[in-house]
């Protein structure tokens, strides 16, 4: 913002506390060209914090990160260009492949369950009944606290040996032992944690369901269509934009899970992510390589692989939306 202030004439379009300077400078009578210039200046002045942030904290770092990805960089010595070595090391690293596998597992299992739960409960709450607002608020609450360290600690306790979950499965005779001690099962405690936070997509589904015109259902009732057909042929198409939004956001978020994996998996030392790397999700491994092993170049390469993966998923979803997402006329 500081440099922009030197363009003194621009200020009368923006910050001047008394805009009625003289009759000639009021916006309307000015020539169209002059007016356009003033709008441009005002626009960029208002945008200047964002532009500075974008250049300094987003675009610049992205370029730097891309460069680091091809270097050996430990923070103390200057980055040394090593070409594709980081990528070669990454693909050859069984621990990296393991982190990719459990992250994909987490995304592919957790996201659909969470979204189905969100949609199911939203359909339930869409019925106008007493207490609806209370339930909506209560179901939403976990989304606000789910990412906190506190909840991760609670989660670790609930899913540990001899705790509630373990006792419950013993009751039904399905194996013994908590999930957090088992390298195979611990990731499912994180799946449970993300499903527990179904409230945020649920609220968005609910808002979408409210927009579906009642007449459509009334007409379907007259035609004798059952509830299931109404859901497939009316509800789903009508809320498909909201469904798309939720799928996109939840998938992208799931790829980036960090703190709950770090805390639920973290042993006393804090280094390990779960027994036998059971919660070593992608970002945990990125953190370990970058900040514990000081492999900034390698970690940058990992970050770019994550970006490519997320971009691919986003692209596929946007490409697929032509086939299943119905936008209303006049909407976007």
């Amino acid at each position, binding site marked *: 913002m500081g440099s922009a202030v030197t363009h003194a004439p621009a200020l009368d379009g923006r910050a001047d506390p008394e805009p009625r300077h003289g009759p000639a400078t009021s916006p309307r009578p000015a020539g169209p060209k002059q007016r356009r210039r003033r709008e441009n200046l005002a626009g960029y002045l208002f945008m200047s*914090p964002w532009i500075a942030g*974008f250049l300094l904290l987003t675009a610049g*770092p*992205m370029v730097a990160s891309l460069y680091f990805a091809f270097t050996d960089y430990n923070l103390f010595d200057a980055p040394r260009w090593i070409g594709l070595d980081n990528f070669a090391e990454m693909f050859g690293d069984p621990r990296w492949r393991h982190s990719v596998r459990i992250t994909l597992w987490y995304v592919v299992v957790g996201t659909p369950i969470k979204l189905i739960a969100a949609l199911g409960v939203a359909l339930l709450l869409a019925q106008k009944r007493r207490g609806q607002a209370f*339930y909506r608020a209560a179901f939403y609450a976990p989304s606000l606290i789910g990412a906190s360290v506190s909840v991760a600690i609670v989660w670790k306790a609930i899913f540990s040996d001899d705790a*509630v979950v373990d006792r419950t499965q013993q009751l039904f005779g399905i194996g013994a032992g908590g999930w957090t001690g088992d390298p195979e099962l611990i990731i499912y405690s994180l799946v449970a944690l993300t499903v527990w936070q179904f409230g945020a997509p649920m609220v968005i589904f609910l808002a979408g369901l409210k927009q579906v015109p009642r007449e459509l259902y009334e007409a379907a009732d007259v035609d004798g269509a059952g509830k299931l057909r109404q859901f497939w042929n009316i509800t789903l198409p009508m809320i498909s934009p909201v469904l798309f939004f939720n799928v996109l956001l939840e998938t992208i978020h799931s790829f*980036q899970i960090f703190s709950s994996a770090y805390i639920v998996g973290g042993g006393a030392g804090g280094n390990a992510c779960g027994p036998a790397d059971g919660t070593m999700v992608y970002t945990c491994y990125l953190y370990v390589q970058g900040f514990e092993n000081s492999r900034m170049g390698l970690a940058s390469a990992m970050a770019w692989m994550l970006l490519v993966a997320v971009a691919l998923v986003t692209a596929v979803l946007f490409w697929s939306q032509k086939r299943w997402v119905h936008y209303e006329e006049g909407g976007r």
Partner: protein
Amino acid sequence: MSAQATDVTPVTDAPPPRSARAAVLRRRLPGSLAWHLGSLAILAVILYPVLWVIGGSFKESGDIVGSLDLFPGDPITDNYTSLADGIADISISTFFVNSLFLAVGSVIGIVVSCSLTAYAFAKIRFAGRNLLFTLMIGTLLLPYHVLLIPQYVLFRNLDMINTYTPLLLGKYLATEAFFVFLMVQFMRNLPRELDEAARLDGCGHFRIYWSIVLPLCRPALITSAIFTFINSWNDFMGPLIYLNEPGKYTISLGLKMFVDQEGLANYGGMIAMSLVALLPVLAFFLAFQRYLIDGMATSGLKG
């Protein structure tokens, strides 16, 4: 009501309206019952961990994990009194104050910078607006981890490690695209006539922003402020990377330090502190849940 209910039995089709309503009521009763039972069952699952941590914080350390009773027979407050000693000579209130400082600082930054940016997108026609808007939406989908390492290197070169600047600067530079987006949506829905009239009266953009748009945007600003507060309070990765002196730790880091240093020795204290750390967020939720839910709902609608 009961008098009407008696003569409802013979009615089948095209009855007088009152008894029809009673019939409908009767037909719907099982559905209503199922609805409430279903909702209560979900509520029980949702609330269980919260009740668990409340109950656990009043139990003896050894009884917390293994016991299936939600609440202890004879509750103790030792877990809370043990917190008074703090962790590693640092009082719990220090972590609270640090977290509060960061959260309030973030809220101010987000409200100011994002509303300015959103105003430009929503109300000013300038060259390149659509391109910048696309870039902004792009950053919404960008994984934060791509920026993690280069930002760390940047702040390290600027000698800002172990300060709060790396955690706050982005908030003052509108890098949280979600809130910009939320406010743009809100501002676009304001009646155009208001600012057009103000323009005709010769108001500049800053005047319109300050005296017309901002006051009308209060709901969006409050939603952004509350979300920012909660996100900042819960943030773990940022403080984990940038803060390395326990005296500057936030509550999240303090809690993690508790887990690492005393988690086994004072399990009850750890559970009590987990609950204490959640309280501000829960209080915010209880006070402002309407803003939060409406804010969430509108963000998804026009995506």
